[in-house]
């Protein structure tokens, strides 16, 4: 049904993640995955543009929280 599309626009020190569609379990997982990849690339921060995602459920929110946790987590040894 409503499959979330994710697009990423990278700048020098941050990236903008554009979402288009319903942020539910699989949609949230897509966003979290995009965030993880950006962090691994050394991106210092990101902006989530949810303009085209009118609906988000609690599971989708949990993935956003996970993405934020991942970004703010201190780097490991």
């Amino acid at each position, binding site marked *: *049904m*409503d499959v979330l599309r994710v697009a990423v626009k990278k700048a020098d020190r941050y990236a903008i993640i554009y979402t288009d569609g*319903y942020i*539910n379990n*699989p949609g949230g997982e897509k966003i979290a995955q995009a965030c993880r990849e950006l962090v691994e690339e050394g991106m210092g921060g990101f902006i989530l543009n949810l303009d085209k995602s009118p*609906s988000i*459920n*609690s*599971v989708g*929110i*949990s*993935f956003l*929280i*996970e993405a934020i*946790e991942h970004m703010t987590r201190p780097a490991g040894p």
Partner: protein
Amino acid sequence: MDKTRVAALVKENRPLTRTDLYHLAPELPDQLHNLPSCFLVPLIVAHQLVGVLCVSERFKQFPYAGYECSLLMTMARQIAIAIYNHQLLEETKSIRTIFKRYVSDHVAEMLLQSEENLRLGGTYKEVVVVFTDLRNFTRMQEDQHPEETVTMLNEYYEEMMQVIHRHNGTITRMSGDGLMILYGAPISFEDDLARAMQTVLDMRDALASLNDHRQAERKEPLSMGVGISMGRVLAGNVGSTQRVEYTVIGEPVNLAARLVDIANGGQILISEDVFHNVRDRFSMGYVRTIELKGQARQVNIYELKGHLPGDIDTRSPDLIPTKEGEITLTVPMWPSIELMVGQAAVAVAGHLNLDDMQIEEIRLAVIEACINAVEHSESADRKIHIIVQLLEDILEVVIQDFGEGVDIDQLRDHMADRKTSHPGKLIKRGWGLTLIESLMDQVEMTSSVKGTAIRMVKKTK
């Protein structure tokens, strides 16, 4: 005894001579053979010699008069009939005893009422077929003494057959550790399917009790797999006039046999037909889809888990009583179906004096309630049922499923535990109910083994 001589005596049907008696019963003591005066009358009925009437006066050697002989012959006929009737009665008792090992007393009596029921030949019947089989039986058999295996099987069958006969099931096949039980044939009743289902649940309980005893004696517990199917079969007495076996032939038999093969120990697998016919009375869950051998079609199989309590029927409107002006909607549990339900709720809410924020809150709460149903209900029908009620100053939305139910207290305790055991840490999942409670003015959740319902109310300002 000389059969030819007996046949001749039967044919002649005359008083016997002493020589006849010698030939018929040489083992009799001489004292009886040498009685001074005696009149010997054969007891003949249905062309069979069933005995000999011997009338004697030991001390007087007077022959019996003609009228006395005639009277004795009449008495002999009556005695022969009485003996014959007694023999028939004993034979019938014996047949019934053997018969009742395979069918319940009730079914046996019904069958014995008419010879028609036991004639060779077949007819198409709607039946329920149950197969049961012990798991790991071959290994257990190899590990233990043969006598122990026989005792084990006898104990097992004793318990199981009591249950089967209590529910008027008919055992049509018994091989090693396996049973085939029929409902709907040879005698059909209105509630054949319900009785079959109750039988296997009771068999499961009976086996649990038997296992308690076995474990107390340090014996390995028994584990049983069950397969149930239903449908049209060819049923009838197959064999010869010497040996007859009541048999059913058809796809339901093959499917039930396949299900018992697939079933794990303790598992009761049922066919899709069975599921659709009893889903309002029994707790069941979808297992998987299988392909039938030799047929290019697939069938869903389900597991029977238990009997639903008879207090409330979730399939009837009693759980959430039907009210006038109610809007009902049933949707399949498709991916993202909650969005559509949310939009439907918005459309209805638009008719009330609610602001945009309240309407959005309703939409989100409905979405969360639907997600709960999809993720936690384990419902076999994979459907969500929505009931919306518009009242003067409130909107009431009920989201319900007919799944296995959840323990609400345990759910709340679990959330509270996580908050206290992980202070300061973000809890990412399990916020659905909390979110619903914060979005709506009133929330009630009810759940049982028959399903779960969330009732949400939004008040107009």
